[in-house]
């Protein structure tokens, strides 16, 4: 078992650096995914002239595989839009776009599920539509969507394993670099797989607990 020590433990700095990049990419993409999903959802529901555009975008991001989106954003967009300029930007963009499509649909379901009477009550006390959205609709949508939002985070983490394909130096990239140098894949790849599985397991358990606790604290009120 000397191999483990040599191939994995000794490389822990490189692996840790890769893990840092992975975590960064995931959190940035996640933040933009939630925002993007909200924007897409609101445009689709309330901005009538742009409704078909938003709908097509949502379906497009959900239907295309993440690898295809990564490659497309990375190689085609710079020619089209002049942006992104780095692989890192391309990776975050592609991951965010994919999840924003799913979240847009989740948010739409959440908004539609709120009984109309609550809006009427809010209007009847003189609240403006913006205030109604900000204080009544949005909090409930976020609460009821909490499990789905957490789930999308795990999806982003799993998809982030592919960003090594566009040479972003995440955990997968670092592992593969070690394999290429040492020609001994068993220990390092197994360790990498175990790290990802453990990380995702912890994240999804923590997220589930957080989401459940949040919802339970409001009584059986929120679905």
């Amino acid at each position: 078992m000397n191999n483990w020590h040599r191939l994995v433990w000794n490389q822990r700095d490189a692996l840790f650096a890769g893990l840092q990049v992975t975590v960064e990419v995931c959190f940035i993409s996640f933040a933009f995914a939630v925002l993007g999903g909200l924007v897409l959802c609101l445009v689709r529901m309330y901005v009538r002239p742009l409704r078909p555009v938003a709908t097509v975008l949502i379906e497009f991001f959900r239907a295309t595989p993440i690898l295809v989106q990564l490659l497309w954003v990375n190689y085609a967009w710079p020619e089209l839009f002049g942006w992104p300029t780095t692989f890192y930007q391309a990776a975050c963009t592609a991951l965010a776009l994919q999840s924003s499509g799913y979240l847009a649909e989740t948010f739409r379901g959440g908004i539609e599920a709120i009984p109309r009477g609550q809006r009427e009550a809010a209007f009847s006390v003189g609240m403006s539509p913006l205030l109604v959205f900000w204080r009544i609709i949005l909090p409930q949508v976020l609460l009821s969507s909490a499990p789905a939002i957490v789930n999308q985070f795990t999806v982003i983490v799993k998809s982030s394993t592919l960003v090594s394909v566009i040479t972003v130096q995440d955990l997968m990239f670092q592992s593969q670099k070690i394999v290429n140098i040492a020609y001994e894949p068993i220990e390092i790849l197994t360790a990498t797989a175990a790290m990802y599985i453990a990380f995702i397991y912890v994240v999804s358990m923590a997220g589930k607990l957080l989401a459940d606790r949040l919802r339970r604290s409001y009584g059986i009120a929120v679905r």
Partner: protein
Amino acid sequence: MNDLPMIRVVDVHKRFGTLEVLKGVSFDVHRGSVVSMIGASGSGKSTLLRCINHLEVPSAGDIFIEGESLCFRGAADGARKPRSLAEINRIRRDLGIVFQQFNLWPHMTVLGNVTEAPQRVRGMSRKDAIALGEACLARVHLRDKAHEYPARLSGGQQQRVAIARALAMQPKVMLFDEPTSSLDPELTDEVLAVMRELADDGTTMIVVTHEMGFAKDVSDQVMFLHNGLIEEEGPPAQVFGAPRSERLRQFISKYVQ
């Protein structure tokens, strides 16, 4: 009593597609009086009530709140233009409404529900809003539930919170849209009791209801609607004791034991 009626409804029509639900309704409500609207389902009573606070927009006619038109505003050149949402919201602050389905916001506490509008719409400070909210909750005998979430309350308690929420905006008129129709029989009494107390305090109220006992005992004026028109109106003694129209007689005999 003030000469100007608190609410004046003038020839209101309401059409949904090809169906005309209100066919020309006119009446006055004076300050401090309690008006009950009774009638069969589909007679247009709820629609009429919802027109008064602009949840439904009349297809024709107008409604005046303390002399001010709800639907239109006079422009400089004398023409009438429909009111903007901001202006309607301003008027809505003076009209409190209690819905059949309570419509409490589930993600806020009872006190949160009651203080939300005073803070965000009237701009009250948090301290003042809480004081006001607790006073309103005391009025409906629910001050001890201030920090509960709506889901933990019974139907009757939730409806009383809804009343407190409407009262917190210190409205000039309270509108009630079948407030007890969704409640189990044992729970309606507590809500009706609160409504009676409000009436005794001199609140101007318009109540759409099937509770004939309430209509008879508490109202100053009863209106019987049928097919989008006021078939008969008058003091309860007259409407219940000596109904002139045959339909009203049949309606009463069905509801009053």
